[in-house]
């Protein structure tokens, strides 16, 4: 069974149709690439899946359940978690605290516990910090736990954004341009990180403009153009698809 099923999804903003009847399904355990020219509707698709904007029509089924119409925090709790294209962090917080906010979901939290500071609350807070440290080790930020998020270099900020998402224990992770603005070394580390995330059993769908990244990393690629899905397949298939060349890369383009 597919983990994510999008059926006839349409998103309209006033008179503009950003997504026009897209069908898309993602299988468990794959790394799916989502590409297309600017304005194709990639980020809008993420916004629809994560509940940021209400959908106009269609269905979004995640793990066999309808998730369209749910609030972002409810969708996150079901295991569908996203990151953002622009660095989006709790900037005034330390690195560790950023991730602790992310994993509050999986720690029991109550107002009485906060007020009385019961042993159970303390244990659960210590556990939360321990898990946050593990996640930060995993994304490679284990040695800068106390640094303020706002002062980190760009690559570390992007990794921290992913760590916050991982803390919510996703089953499907939506990464919006994880390598945007990165140099080659940072990109390589990010690719490695995405692979390791998939290896822990998390499905990944990512938007990316860097063709080297997409072709090298993804199992399958979906190509959007003007709000519709024009191709889907393995990187090799997509690379050879004339329609993709035409729409996305220009007819003369030589795809690396």
């Amino acid at each position, binding site marked *: 069974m597919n983990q994510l099923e999008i059926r006839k999804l349409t998103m309209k903003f006033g008179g503009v149709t950003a997504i026009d009847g897209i069908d898309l399904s993602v299988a468990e355990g794959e790394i799916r690439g989502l590409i297309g020219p600017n304005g194709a509707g990639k980020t809008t698709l993420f916004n629809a899946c994560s509940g940021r904007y209400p959908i106009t029509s269609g269905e979004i089924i995640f793990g066999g359940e309808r998730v369209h119409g749910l609030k972002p925090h409810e969708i*996150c709790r079901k295991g569908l978690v996203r990151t953002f294209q622009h660095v989006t962090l709790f900037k005034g917080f330390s690195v560790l605290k950023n991730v602790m*906010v992310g994993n509050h979901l999986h720690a029991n939290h109550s107002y009485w516990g*906060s007020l009385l500071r019961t042993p159970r609350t303390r244990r659960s807070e210590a556990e939360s910090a321990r898990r946050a440290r593990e996640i930060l080790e995993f994304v490679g930020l284990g040695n800068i736990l106390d640094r303020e998020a706002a002062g980190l270099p760009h690559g570390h900020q992007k990794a921290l954004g992913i760590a916050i998402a991982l803390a919510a224990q996703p089953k499907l992770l939506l990464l919006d341009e994880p390598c945007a603005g990165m140099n080659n070394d940072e990109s390589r580390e990010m690719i490695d990180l995405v692979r390791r995330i998939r290896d822990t059993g998390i499905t990944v769908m990512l938007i990316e403009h860097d063709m080297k990244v997409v072709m090298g990393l993804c199992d399958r690629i979906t190509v959007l153009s003007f709000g519709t899905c024009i191709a889907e397949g393995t990187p090799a298939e997509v690379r050879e698809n004339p329609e993709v060349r035409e729409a996305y890369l220009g007819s003369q383009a030589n795809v690396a």
Partner: protein
Amino acid sequence: MEQTDRSSRIAWAALLLASLIAPVVVGFDKYLIHVGIIISLNVALATSLWMIWSLGFISFAHAGFMGIGAYTSALLFTKLGLSMWYGLWLGAAMSGAIALVIALPLMRTRAVYFFMASWAVGEVIKRNFAYFRDFFGGWDGVFNIRAPKLDLGFVEVNFADRLAYYYLALFFVVLTVLVIHRINNSRTGMIYWSIHENELLAQHAGINVFRHKVIAFTIACALAGLTGALYAHYQTYISPKSFDIWKSEFALVHVIVGGLTTVGGPVAGAISLTVVDELLRATGYFRTVFFGAVLIAAVLLLPGGLETIPGRLRSFFKRSDK
């Protein structure tokens, strides 16, 4: 980090001790004990206002909710003869209940819209007290709200006595600050500040942002209601004017001058500005002008507020060590 923790604990303990022995130090001077009570009430109000700020909101309805607590407790006493021991809790509960209902639409607004909406809420609450003359006493207010007595078996404490009321007010302000401090330092507080920092990300990290906003607003307003009841039974007289927009604005000024990021901010701000305000009493007509000058000086000379003083001192001494 741990060292800061320890020194802040020492500072809190010192402050509490100083408050406990203050009446003795001032030789049980009636006027100074009165100032002490006003300080306590201002600290409680500013701290609960700061709790709403921790989610990123500046509420101008705070004095209104203080008024709901005050009127509830006052009317329970004058109409039903219930003492403040009931009025305190029922006043807080009434204020919290009304805050909860109002929060449902109010907490959906943001930034400047929240600012305007909360201003309107505070004004409407005040005008209700004035409008329903038969019930709330109109602009004349409510009189003869007496302080309670407490029979401890061997001795009866009459809180109409200023000294006794000072300790009563101190007890409740400590309770208020403690509750808010606990919440702020827990995971709940972390969630509040995360909403303050980045609401979009908080939502997508699985936090029910709206629910936390409503709960925080309700708790803060209930605590303001408690403060209001304490105020009513101390002053023995309340009117709609006691809870107008200026009261909210003073509380806000206490928070800003004290500092916005820790609970020590509103406490320090309310203490020092209440003292300044009392010192300026001698200037009579020009009191508000001088008060304004002090505020401007505080904001210009000490950006970040009084709470930044310990950090400034520490870095100053570190530099002179080298």
